[in-house]
């Protein structure tokens, strides 16, 4: 996968979810509650779409998963040991 292709992807879904888990559940809160709205279940799929930019690339990512490859394999953000 070329580096330009990777740039289209941006961060992976996993990265976004990890971020969400931090910024939505934790951190300072002034009032007892916070005003947010969610697109509900759509979020992840829409999110994935936003992440990869188009339906074609969504299938590319899914295709990679089906071949047993980690879609983040060549990402500079995800290191494997």
């Amino acid at each position, binding site marked *: 996968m070329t580096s330009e292709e990777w740039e289209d992807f941006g*961060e992976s879904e996993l990265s*976004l979810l*990890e*971020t*969400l*888990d*931090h*910024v*939505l*559940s*934790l*951190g*300072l*809160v*002034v*009032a007892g509650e*916070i*005003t*947010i*709205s*969610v*697109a509900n279940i759509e*979020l992840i799929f829409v*999110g994935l779409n*936003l*992440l990869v930019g188009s339906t074609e690339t969504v299938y590319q990512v899914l295709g990679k998963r089906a071949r047993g490859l980690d879609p983040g394999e060549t990402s500079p953000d995800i290191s494997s*040991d």
Partner: protein
Amino acid sequence: MNVYAYCLSQEADWSALEAVTGLAGERPFVLSYGEIVAVVSKPPDSPIAVTRENVLAHERVISHVFAQTTPLPFRFGGLLRSGELDRYVEANRDSLLGLLARVRGAVEMSVKIIHEHGSEEEDDAVGRTEPAEPEKVLGQGAMFLAAKQRESAESKLFEERAREIANWLKEQLAGIVKDSFLRLTPTRGMAVKAAYLVERPRLEEYRDRLKFVREQRPELLFLTSGPWPPYSFCDLIT
């Protein structure tokens, strides 16, 4: 004036913020409360939508501050009405200064652990709570209770397991981490969500130890991430 809040910090070089935009493309700016400084921006419309764009903007502003000093990050969605922020800082000044001192020079590292799907042993343990006479036709009420019993037994098992893993991890990392915050999530899947406060100079040591530690228990699945601003160490109620 309404503001969207990103983080609280002590003094830093704010020219770093000139390069970044926050939610709705708004430029962040600082509000000073003496030793405590708030990084805010003009807010987008309420309610704040949880979109990839907004979430990353939130993180982006905070990470610009984080490059220089460890701030206390606000939870996403912090739209504050005029005066709310002022009152909050004044009312909690001492606690906030305490938190800032605690996180100074450190970062948050995250460890999440999933336990491989239950062993036969576990399923047996849960099975033992089944009613002794399965041939009998149970009414709705009795079935409801039987299901609750199963849930309860399972729950206890997962909780024990989560606690055991959390304690083990704590022992393994003792002496390297400054502080820890654990969320036990005893479901069939995720057992533990741990956050560690690690001093920046000890990050390498931490990573090495963690690498060693995960090899010790191959039945555990690990996800590690970081460094994060200290979201997990912002609890004012101690």
